[in-house]
């Protein structure tokens, strides 16, 4: 340990002082921390930040979690969810037995053998009667990579069905569409490390302080150390994120495309753009033809800040200032999440953010990056990268790509033509197509869900509940949920720290969690369940990792996955299990060899190993000129250029009207995770947010005679919800906000949300609905911390 003179004096004084009051100082101070038998390295269970943790185990139980100070994501810090996650593991509601629903509607405990036989017999029967696409898989950005890879292989390679989806469709699909349509390849160019190099940070469609609190901590520290760094927040709500902002750009939901175009116009009007960078690295296009800069300027001519202010309610002066800071700071980074993605124009919103970076050259250099923050811990690694979606194969390559299909078939030792070239149904269509055997118009008759709760989390729930109820529904989860209430079979899953595996976070970083303890009761790892289904269906050759040693199973699945994708731009070939076990902070792809340190920034010569990757170049026919410092090598046109998109302005699918005069937007709060099935079972968290509520501006509250605590009915054309009012100036007048975690039926806000999808990404517009409100009663105490405890309770 190096120690300065000043510190040395401090330590010396402390030692002397301690001795004087009878305290002896041990060399290591771990004794002062949690009393555990061992600390096991792993990843946090919750958001997409990818915080690296140590899990404290004592007498075979997890009793503590602490941050890993060596982590490159969180530097040891955790939010309340990650810190207290272990508390839900031993909640009495944990599902510990396999269960089959009986004719009387109640569940009966059965053995694993009986449950697996029941499930696979039914799947075989449905396949035989209705075809290979009659059974679907709906997974999660919270499942381990090995689990998603296994289910994907089982369905696409085993059942020959592309009816494979996951909840990342509901949160990140528009970001994927944005990255692929602009740069030709999914996932960010840069890393979190750009935060500390940036001079201007543009937070848009992200309540970072609550939804990615550890990323927010980094931004806060950066601002504190460098007060001249400009922080801009663009949001309909003045959230707690805005506490550190220099500038707030309030916008009506769904109108921010005009703000982004207006910022571009201001940048061009003031010659703040980087024409040299644009000419070398980008083309201006509408997807059909390319244009010159004059045409782009002409396209933008109507987006004056004054006109845009009228459209969006964002002050013209704020747009001008934001454009100036963004373009002239020297290094601007933007970060966004669901506020841009969960939109019917989500891909376009992503494109327009990339545009701002491309026209100002704020990309491919330290501190300058357009960065989409992922919501879930393994949406990137587990679902996007393994291709566990209806249109993809491992390596994030389309199932419709015949060359890649042939490659996967060869790697999986399948006969040529086994994998169906036709994509399956995207999530909303999949659930719309789900129904009972008697429903001729519902082609999907069975579904297996893993680590997700669609009966609460889908938008416009009223439309989709019947399909789940009527179909043969198999649910793999750790607690009773709204979805288990509709299930025919419930399979108890192991928690992350009871099974281990890899999570890949927002910044292309894969981190291994070691198995810490045995699963509770008869719960089993999801990958084991998938492998057993394969075995019971005679597909054990396809999924051979079916032993009772789960870390061994995980390692086999991972080794195959990184071999199959080794020549892609997402290569993790150097991130072997042995290495991931040793690395204190995981590895960022591309990581092509075991001696490669991982990649901080893509597309930059000298930083990105793909410039020298012979296998990749051969496989994808990429040639790279030696005189380009940056090169977008996945450009479909082979010019190494990114696309600056001329996207016309479009508002939300549903705007307020005389009948439905308010915008409703939804989101998370720091303590609660998604549908609250885990976090509401942690007492400290449940107390902080025991129920959903409706945020309303004081002007609107006054107009409707609403005071704090009054019960308010909020209604869209799809459904309604009844919630207590919180009167706050945080939102603009005319905009309501409801957090989405509450499981209590009357307060489940997704009955109200819109299921209209983006035509490109198929992601639904959770974030914007037109609603009306009505005061129902005075205050009622609804702080009931509601959870579904009884597995036999009905929906």
């Amino acid at each position, binding site marked *: 340990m190096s120690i300065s003179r000043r510190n040395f004096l401090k330590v010396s004084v402390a030692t002397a002082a301690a001795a004087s009051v009878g305290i002896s100082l041990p060399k290591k*101070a771990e004794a002062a921390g949690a009393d555990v038998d061992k600390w096991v390295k792993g990843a946090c269970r919750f958001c997409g930040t990818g915080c690296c943790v140590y899990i404290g185990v004592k007498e075979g139980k997890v009793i503590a979690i602490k941050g890993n100070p060596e982590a490159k994501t969180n530097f040891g810090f955790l939010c309340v969810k990650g*810190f207290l996650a272990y508390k839900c593991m031993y909640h009495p509601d944990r599902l510990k037995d396999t269960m089959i629903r009986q004719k009387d509607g109640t569940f009966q405990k059965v053995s694993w053998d009986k449950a697996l036989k029941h499930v696979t017999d039914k799947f075989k029967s449905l396949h035989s009667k209705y075809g290979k696409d009659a059974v679907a898989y709906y997974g999660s950005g919270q499942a381990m990579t090995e689990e998603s890879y296994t289910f994907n292989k089982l369905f696409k390679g085993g059942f020959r069905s592309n009816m494979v989806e996951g909840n990342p469709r509901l949160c990140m699909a528009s970001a994927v569409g944005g990255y692929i349509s602009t740069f030709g390849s999914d996932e960010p160019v840069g890393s979190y490390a750009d935060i500390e190099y940036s001079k201007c940070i543009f937070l848009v469609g992200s309540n970072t302080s609550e939804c990615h609190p550890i990323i927010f901590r980094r931004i806060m520290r950066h601002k504190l150390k460098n007060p001249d760094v400009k922080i801009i927040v663009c949001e309909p709500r003045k959230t707690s994120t805005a506490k550190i902002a220099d500038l707030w750009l309030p916008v009506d939901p769904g109108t921010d495309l005009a703000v982004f175009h207006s910022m571009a116009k201001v940048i061009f009007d003031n010659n703040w753009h980087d024409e040299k960078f644009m000419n070398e690295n980008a083309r201006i296009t509408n997807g059909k033809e390319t244009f010159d800069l004059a045409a782009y300027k002409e396209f933008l001519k109507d987006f004056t800040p004054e006109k845009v202010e009228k459209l969006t309610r964002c002050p013209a002066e704020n747009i001008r200032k934001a454009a100036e800071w963004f373009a002239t700071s020297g290094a601007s980074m933007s970060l966004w999440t669901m506020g841009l993605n969960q939109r019917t124009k989500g891909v376009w919103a992503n494109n327009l953010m990339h545009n701002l970076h491309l026209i100002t050259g704020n990309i491919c250099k330290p501190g300058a990056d357009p960065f989409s923050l992922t919501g879930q811990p393994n949406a990137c690694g587990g679902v996007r990268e393994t291709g566990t979606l209806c249109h993809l194969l491992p390596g994030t390559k389309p199932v419709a790509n015949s060359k890649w299909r042939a490659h996967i078939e060869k790697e999986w030792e399948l006969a040529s033509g086994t994998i169906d070239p036709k994509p399956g149904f995207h999530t909303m269509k999949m659930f719309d197509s789900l129904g009972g055997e008697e429903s001729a118009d519902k082609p999907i008759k069975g579904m297996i869900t893993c680590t997700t709760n669609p009966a609460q989390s889908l938008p416009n729930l009223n439309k989709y509940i019947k399909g789940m109820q009527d179909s043969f529904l198999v649910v793999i989860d750790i607690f009773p949920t709204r979805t288990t209430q509709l299930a025919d079979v419930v399979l108890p899953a192991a928690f992350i720290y009871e099974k281990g595996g890899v999570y890949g976070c927002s910044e292309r970083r894969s981190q291994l969690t070691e198995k810490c303890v045995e699963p509770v009761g008869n719960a089993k790892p999801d990958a084991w369940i998938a492998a057993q289904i394969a075995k019971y269906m005679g597909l054990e050759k396809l999924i051979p990792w079916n032993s009772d040693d789960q870390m061994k199973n995980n390692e086999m699945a991972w080794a195959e996955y990184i071999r199959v994708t080794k020549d892609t731009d997402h290569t993790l070939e150097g991130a072997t299990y042995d290495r991931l076990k040793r690395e204190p902070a995981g590895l960022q792809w591309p990581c092509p060899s075991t001696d490669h340190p991982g990649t901080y920034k893509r597309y930059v010569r000298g930083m990105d190993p793909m410039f020298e990757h012979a296998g990749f170049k051969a496989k994808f026919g990429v040639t790279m000129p030696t005189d380009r410092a940056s090169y977008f090598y996945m450009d479909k046109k082979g010019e190494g250029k990114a696309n600056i998109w001329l996207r016309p302005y479009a508002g939300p699918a549903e705007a307020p009207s005389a009948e439905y005069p308010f915008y409703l937007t939804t989101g998370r709060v720091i303590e609660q995770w998604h549908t609250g099935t885990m976090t509401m079972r942690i007492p400290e968290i449940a107390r902080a947010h025991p129920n959903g509520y409706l945020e309303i501006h004081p002007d609107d509250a006054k107009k409707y005679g609403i005071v704090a605590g009054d019960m308010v009915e909020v209604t869209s054309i799809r459904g309604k919800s009844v919630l207590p009012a919180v009167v706050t100036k945080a939102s603009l007048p005319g905009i309501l906000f409801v957090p989405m975690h509450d499981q209590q039926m009357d307060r489940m806000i997704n009955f109200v949300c819109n299921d209209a999808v983006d035509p490109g990404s198929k992601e639904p517009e959770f974030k914007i609905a037109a609603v009306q409100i009505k005061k129902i009663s005075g205050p009622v105490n609804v702080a009931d911390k509601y959870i579904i405890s009884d597995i036999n309770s009905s929906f």
Partner: protein
Amino acid sequence: MKTSKKIFIMVFILAIGAISFAAFAGSKHPEDMGSKDCAECHADVTPDVFKQWEESAHGFTGVKCQVCHGDEVNFVKSPENATCEGCHAKQIDNNQVPQARCASCHITHNFTVHKVHQYK
């Protein structure tokens, strides 16, 4: 400041720490919390403490009352080092006086030099 003065101050702080450790062991929340969030009452009954917290790094990053002080059934007036370790493992590891609580020196709710005015 002279070294002898520093030693005196350190001894004083440690003594306070030792006393507070004894005083806070087995602490119980003085009121029935019902279904209320801590902040619902403490913004009014301990406004200075609440304001200090609100303007601290913990306030900015959403480390609310419950994280350090627990729920009603596991309430502690002064958090144990094992709690601080959740985020400050390195500091715990480097702590030269592990028998003293972190809170003995990091007094009340200021914690660090962060202040809201520094962002304005």
